[in-house]
Each structure stands twice: as C-alpha cells, then as structure tokens.
C-alpha cells in the first residue's frame, strides 16, 4: 500500500472533484465565522439570491472588534456595533449557531472551537482568519480563507483549493526549564523566515511536540501562518482524546469509541515522503523574542540583534527600515531594554494554561511601575476558570488589568491599542508595523517571558527571574 502522510489522508478524503489542470473542489466539515470577514459574504449571497447550504456546519462568534470592557452594554464604536449587529442578524436569518457577547461560550473563535469540542481530528476546518491554523493541533486540516471563500463555504460547503506541498518539522528532545511552545515556534520561524513555509502545509512531529499539552500544541499550529504555511497539524494522540472527552460537541458513548478508533488511524505512515523535512533539537531552543516587524525577526532573549553583514539591496533596506521603526540598532542586545506595555492574550496564548503560567510566575510579585499590564482571556470559559482557580486575584494583586474576552490588543481593531512609539511585549502572533496600534512597537514572546518583563519592566530572560 502507498505510504501517505496524515495531511494526504485528510485532504484526499475531502476532495469532491478534481478539476482537470485546476484546483480540487474541497469539502469543508466545519466553518467558523466572525463579524469582520463575513458581512460581505452574506451580502453577496443575498445579491445572488441564494442561502446557506448547511447552516449547522457553521458556528459564529464576534471577537475581532469587540470591546474588552463593559461587554454587557451597547458597543460604543458605531462601525464595530454595526458589524456585530450584522453578524447577529445573519445568524438569525440563516439559522447559524452564535456564541454572542456575554454568553457562556463567547470568545475568540479559535479558542471556543476547541473548547466546545467542535474541532475534532480528521476534520477540514476553515474561517476567514489566517489563525484558523490553530485547530490543526487536533489533527485537522484547518486554514484561513478570504471573504470570497467564506461566501463559497456558506453557499456550497466547498472551496476550490490546489493541494499545497507537504513539510514535516520535527523537534526532538527535552525542552529546557522556562522554555515554552511559543519559544519553539518563534525559534522555528526565526530559522526558516516569515516566508519559509509558503506553499506548504506543515506537520509538526517529534518527541518535544508529542510531550506538549493541547494548549501548547495550539500555540504552535496557530503561528504556522507566520512562516507562510497555509496551516500546520499534529497527529492526534491520547493527549488529544483526553482533551476532547466530555466536551459539548465531542461524540458520546458508542460514538466516542468509534470516533477514537478512527482518530487513531490518523497518522503519517512510516516511510511516507514529504516535499521538505526539517529537524530541530529541543535543547537548542531558549526563551525567544522578536526585535523587528515580522515574526521571522526573532532571537534568543540573551542574543544581540543581527548586524547587516551579508545583506544587500532591498533586503538590507527593508531590514534597516524595520529596525528604524522599532527604534533599535543592528548588533545591540535587546535584554535590559525598557518596556511600556505587556499583553497576555490572543488566539495564540489566551488559553487557561497561559493565564496559569503567568499567574504562577507573578504570584507574590508586583508589576514594574513603568508597565501597563493587560491580561485578556481568550474566552468566557477561560475567564471563568481563571476566577475559579484564584488566578485573577493573583494577577490583580500583581497589578495586571483583567479584561473581557476578545482579540483585544492583538490587532488594534478595537479600543485596546498600544500608543505610538511605545514598546509592548506581547503573547500575540504578529509584530507587523502598526499591528497593535499606529506606531506601536511589538515584541512577541512567550507568556513566561511576558510575565518576567512585567515584573522587571525590562526585556528579561524569564529563567533569570525564577530564582528571585
């Protein structure tokens, strides 16, 4: 029998038709929508005079533009309010399940999907958001799409896609103390660049990946897009099944046993061939931070910003432009630099495990005076757990401001923005110019590093604060 990869198995079983010299007609099991990339899709359906083909395969929540305070009140920003109201209207009209503001499972779309057990191994999942790759942590093919494609899925439950190439990235060995899955993915992206996996779908493998929790796996798959990959996935295993068991939409009883039996078949065959294979040693990975304006511009916290040696032409110009934006010099260390804001949250690191990590770290400590510290749970469920576990109390005593669930300061689309020229060390996924607000300077790092920065007020290697 032909040896195939996990990706092939899922992809091939979802091809309705292959267009000669064209893409595949690709069937979508689950579709998530939010308020920003769906309204035009619904509008176009209306213009065409067609409806939603399978409403039960789509789930909605408002997350991008929502305020993270006073969510029980009317949204003040008129345009944001209109988008959220449009989403409500469309969900009602077409019979789509909506997890609205203030309800038990409201949250960032990529946090609530797994939380509800909607996300399951072997599925194809899309959403008009590039971080849909998060769901790949469950052994699903999940990726972001544009609004035209949102329209296609609503209308036909299919999109036209050419099959990407396959890459396997293995991380072998034991992670050091203070090193998290965020550091793994920032390390990989720094090695292969922000475009290093463009054209590929990535499978993450190796002992260091298998040893990670589901939350940590989601962080890795989430940032696949930041190296250009369409998505990333991890073969499901006992960790995956344990996470899903008992979740609202997870199969129950006999169906559960059947599902697990199927899920266990979802793995890459020994000897299957990838278009590209990369192997990293977990022992080489240390706490990471970005210093530039794309996620590939990352270094170990202890290292210096690379010099321009060997760069020329537009490559060098772009590099210097990026450092100028950040207010950094080539060759200087980042450690010790003063920081203004820390942000813990987003679909990358806004889950309960992330909040626990930060709370454990800052317990009994205080944030530095120069720091404004925001902590934004990825969902109501995360918020609820954080209260129940006493984490909120710890964080508030440390001087953190807890906000309500949403995308918040990850993308400067709502009220949570970093002011121009200020430095934010953030657990989110993108350090693009202006990503957290016009002129804002973002440095991406793990929740642990962010916690260390909050306490010291400066760029800090979390391992150096552990002993204090």
């Amino acid at each position: 029998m032909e040896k195939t990869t996990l990706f092939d198995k899922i992809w091939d079983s979802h091809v309705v038709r292959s267009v000669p010299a064209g893409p595949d007609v690709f069937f979508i099991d689950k579709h998530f929508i939010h308020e920003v990339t769906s309204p035009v899709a619904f509008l176009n359906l209306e213009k065409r005079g067609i409806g939603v083909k399978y409403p039960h395969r789509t789930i909605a929540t408002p997350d991008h533009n929502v305020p993270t305070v006073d969510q029980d009140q009317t949204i003040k920003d008129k345009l944001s309010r209109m988008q959220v109201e449009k989403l409500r209207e469309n969900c009602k009209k077409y019979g789509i399940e909506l997890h609205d503001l203030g309800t038990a499972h409201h949250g960032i779309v990529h946090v609530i999907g797994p939380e509800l057990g909607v996300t399951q191994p072997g599925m194809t999942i899309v959403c008009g958001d590039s971080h849909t790759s998060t769901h790949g942590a469950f052994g699903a093919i999940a990726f972001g799409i544009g609004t035209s494609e949102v329209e296609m899925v609503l209308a036909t439950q299919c999109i036209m896609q050419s099959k990407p190439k396959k890459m396997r990235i293995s991380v072998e060995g034991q992670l050091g103390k203070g090193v998290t899955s965020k550091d793994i993915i920032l390390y990989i992206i720094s090695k292969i660049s922000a475009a290093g996996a463009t054209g590929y779908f990535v499978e993450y493998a190796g002992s260091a990946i298998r040893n990670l929790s589901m939350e940590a796996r989601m962080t890795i798959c989430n940032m696949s897009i930041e190296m250009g990959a369409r998505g990333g996935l991890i073969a499901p295993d006992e960790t995956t099944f344990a996470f899903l068991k008992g979740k609202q939409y997870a199969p129950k009883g006999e169906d559960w046993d059947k599902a697990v039996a199927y899920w266990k078949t979802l793995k890459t065959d020994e000897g299957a061939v990838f278009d590209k294979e990369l192997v990293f040693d977990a022992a080489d990975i240390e706490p990471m931070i970005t210093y530039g304006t794309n996620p590939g511009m990352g270094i170990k916290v202890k290292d210096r910003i690379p010099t321009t040696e060997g760069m020329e032409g537009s490559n060098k110009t772009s590099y210097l432009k990026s450092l100028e934006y950040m207010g950094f010099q080539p060759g200087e260390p980042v450690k010790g630099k003063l920081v203004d804001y820390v942000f813990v949250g987003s679909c990358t690191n806004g889950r309960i495990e992330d909040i626990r990590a930060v709370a454990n770290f800052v317990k009994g400590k205080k944030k530095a005076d120069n720091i404004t510290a925001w902590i934004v749970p990825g969902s109501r469920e995360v918020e609820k757990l954080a209260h129940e576990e006493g984490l909120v109390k710890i964080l508030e005593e440390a001087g953190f401001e807890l906000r309500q669930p949403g995308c918040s300061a990850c993308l400067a689309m709502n009220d949570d923005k970093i002011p121009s020229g200020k430095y934010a060390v953030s657990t989110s996924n993108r350090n693009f110019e202006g990503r957290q607000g016009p002129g804002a300077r973002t440095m991406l790092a793990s929740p642990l590093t962010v916690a260390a920065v909050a306490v010291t007020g400066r760029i800090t290697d979390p391992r150096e604060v552990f002993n204090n």
Partner: protein
Amino acid sequence: MAYDKFTVLRSTAVPLPTENVDTDQIIPARFLKATEREGFGDNLFRDWRYDVEGNPKKDFVLNDPTYSGKILVAGKNFGSGSSREHAVWAIYDYGFRCVVSSFFADIFKNNCLNIGVLPVTVSPEFAEKLFAAIEADPKTEIEVNLPEQKIKLLATGESESFDINEYKKDNMQNGFDDIDYLLNMSSEIDAFAASR
C-alpha cells in the same frame, strides 16, 4: 460575484520594492469595519501614505505623482499575514488590476484570483529588471498578457513567462468566479456530504 475580464493589460507601473509587505500594511485592521465592499482604496497603505494627522507623506510612492498605473510591482513576500480579502479590495478599489512580485503569500494570491486582480510571479532577476526600468523611466509601459502568460517590458521587449493554472486562467479571462462553478455541482456536493 463575477468580476472584470482580464486579457491583456498595458500600463505604467507603481514600484514598491519593500520586502515582506504584510496585509496589515496594505490595509490596517481599524479600516476593516465596513459591511460592504466599497471605498477601501482610500485606506490602501494607510499608515505609509498618511501621517497621524491624515496628511500625505511625501516620500511614499503612492503620493509621488511621478508614478501611476494599473500595475503594482512589489517586493518579495508580498501580502503575508492576515487573510483579510479587504487588502485585495483596497488594491482593486485604488485602481490596480495586476500585482507583480517575485514571491507572494498564499492566501493573498488566492484572494487576488478570487476577485479578479491578477497576481504575476516573476523571477527575482526579472523583478529587479522591472524596478530598474521603472526607476529609469517612470512612464515605461509593461504588458501583462494573460492568454500568452507573458509579462513584457515594452521599451526593450524583454519578457518572461508566468504560471497560472488553466482553470483560474479561464476564470480570469471570462470574469467567472468559483461560486458559479460550485453552484453548478450542487447535487454532487449533496451526495458527497450525505456520504460523510
């Protein structure tokens, strides 16, 4: 929605050699709050084009009257990051019909094809030639010929072939979109869905 047909485009071009231009630069998130697909061109490259007071920044290429045209020649890894189709809507609404780069991000490229903006991938060498030619003469014309899959510098005749799959090429030439195709196979999709 069906869109403009694309066959042969002859135009001057706007050069933007910056590498890794992400979709947050093409259109920042705070301008994604519309519920209709109109007017996004005004905010194309907003924070590079205007200062905080809304005054045009003189050194940005879209504010330089020397350069104009329906073709945007961009640096390597153009369109990375967010999947927001609004980025392509902004490019289209501004008046571009074709984007040329030596390397495109995947989702951006798909989004272009889905609304009828032709993404043309050229070799890094040819991209350099285009930048040099535009710099030497901002009025130099470029021909993008979709039927022949060729991009040509009209002044010198230098040209290069580009790839596009037959299905998408056909769609672009006829102004068809994927939904037209998918709606026509509705019963086949139903049968597939029922088998799952």
